[in-house]
């Protein structure tokens, strides 16, 4: 097992955890369990928070600034990516004060186009890599995939973990892959996609979260968007607990990105409430929390217009991308 290169100053307990395969297994299996009913209840409970007026406006703008505007289709073209980039730059042409989104997220072969379109905007270019979405290829291919995207100018890499290896208990292998992809990223930020829909239990989500953090992921991300269920509130709770606990133990701040299935402002606000109350207020920033989404942005914009105008808006008043 390769030692992680990103966290040279891990506290002794965590440094111990990544010493070898057996230690890693012991550590992950020694994490406190997650009670399904309890975490779902807490998520549902927080979901009843009623966010109104100024706090809602703040939430909408914050959510917009956290969007990784995403297109990950086989049918993607340069034209589609250019149009997405335009949307990212100016989400609502009628309202120039709308914050820009955090990043656009595309396949590696579209990175170059996105880079061209977004130069100078401060918007990050994220690319999925590592044989996304299944991750079923050789490490060599995954590393080349990563290098390809980084060379094309991606500033953020969204990798997938090997769920097969994880579910069969080969944690060291998963760990090593993340470490090597992180290395291949260079200065690019690494988001580690757990694909929680395939991990089946919250206990596994917690273990995979810690695995991703131990291996040096800057973000842990729920899903590819290609597997159902994608992001859910309780899964995100578990991941937020992981980054909070990571911070308690190491002092480092790591991020969380739910992706897939978050389509409405109402949903997004529930996620922000969870970020606020489970991880803490300091996570309410695009550097530590992102939404992987496409249709969400327009709903946020419509709601933003509704808030400002005092009447309901309609889809014809926001742009499609």
């Amino acid at each position, binding site marked *: 097992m390769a030692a992680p290169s990103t966290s040279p100053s891990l506290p002794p307990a965590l440094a111990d955890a990544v010493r070898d395969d057996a230690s890693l297994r012991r550590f992950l299996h020694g994490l406190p369990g997650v*009670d*399904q*009913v*309890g975490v*779902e209840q807490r998520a549902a409970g927080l979901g009843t928070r009623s966010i109104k007026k100024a706090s809602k406006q703040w939430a909408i703008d914050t959510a917009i600034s956290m969007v990784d505007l995403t297109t990950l289709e086989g049918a993607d073209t340069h034209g589609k990516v250019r149009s997405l980039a335009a949307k990212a730059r100016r989400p609502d042409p009628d309202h120039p004060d709308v914050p820009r989104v955090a990043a656009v997220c595309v396949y590696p072969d579209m990175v170059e186009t996105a880079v061209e379109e977004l130069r100078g905007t401060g918007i990050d270019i994220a690319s999925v890599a590592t044989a996304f979405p299944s991750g079923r290829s050789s490490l060599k291919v995954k590393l080349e995939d990563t290098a390809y995207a980084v060379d094309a100018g991606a500033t953020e890499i969204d990798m997938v973990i090997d769920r097969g290896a994880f579910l069969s208990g080969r944690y060291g292998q998963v760990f090593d892959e993340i470490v090597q992809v992180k290395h291949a990223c260079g200065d690019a930020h690494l988001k580690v996609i757990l694909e929680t829909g395939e991990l*089946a*239990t919250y206990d596994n989500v917690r273990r995979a979260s810690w695995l991703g953090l131990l291996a040096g992921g800057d973000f842990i991300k729920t899903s590819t968007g290609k597997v159902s269920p994608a992001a859910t509130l309780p899964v995100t709770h578990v991941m937020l607990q992981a980054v909070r606990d990571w911070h308690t133990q190491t002092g480092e701040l790591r991020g969380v990105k739910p992706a897939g299935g978050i389509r409405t402002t109402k949903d997004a606000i529930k996620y922000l409430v969870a970020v606020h109350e489970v991880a803490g207020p300091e996570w309410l920033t695009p550097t530590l929390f992102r939404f992987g989404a496409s249709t969400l942005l327009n709903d946020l914009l419509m709601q933003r217009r509704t808030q400002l105008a005092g009447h309901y808006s309609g889809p014809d008043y926001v742009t499609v991308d």
Partner: protein
Amino acid sequence: MSENRIAVTKTYKLYIGGAFPRSESGRSYPVVDANGGFLANAAQGSRKDARDAVAAARKAFAGWSGATAYNRGQVLFRVAEVLEGRREQFAAEVAACEGVPAKKAQSLVDAAIDRWVWYAGWTDKVATVLGASNPVAGPYFSFSVPEPTGVVAVLAPQESSLLGLISVVAPVIATGNTAVVVTSQDRPLPAVTLSEVLATSDLPGGVVNVLTGRTAEIAPWLASHADVNALDLTGAPESARADLERAAAGTVKRVLRARPAEDFTGEPGLARLRAFLETKTVWHPIGV
């Protein structure tokens, strides 16, 4: 063998914690038959004997309530076997104490033994009949089980010296309670003999403790004792019942009130089993 053999008479003592002490007070009182003829001296239990009996019952509670229901059933059935072997002796004592003809006494003894067997069979059925799985509206498994209340002070019926006694004691211990029994004041002999049966069966010491003496003297100490959980007033003197209930309220004891002229020959039903049971409801989430 000489026809004029002088019988060895029995000393009737208390039964506490599996032992047969005399009353710590050193007192005894004469027990007479229905015609006023002297039968024996019985130990006249005191408040300190009651205190010792409660301590013995409390000590025995964990083991007895923690035993499997099957085991309790076996032990109680064993008691019935030993009872059966003493039919003649019980019949003679019941006849003497209650002043009934020998045949009637025999039938009362038989009914008492059968009653004991009936309750012995309940030990491993009570939880099935009185427990439940609760279909709660949520992702939880919820179940309710009956559990013994604890130490039960039983004031045994004054009239029915064996059948009544067994009808009030057996349901208390069948469900895992331990008992401090104050016997019929004037008809205590079958109760003492029952103690000897219990002592020579497999019943752990302290599960049943038997005090003879003046009910009105001992009962208030049991009713107010903070380590007694429940009180059966069946044999309480009518004039004392309200006061005993009031005393029991001091620690919120469960009180089984006396029923007017309770007939112990009929079908007993579940009321006495239920009277000294708590229901415990346990919840656990259902999830992966």
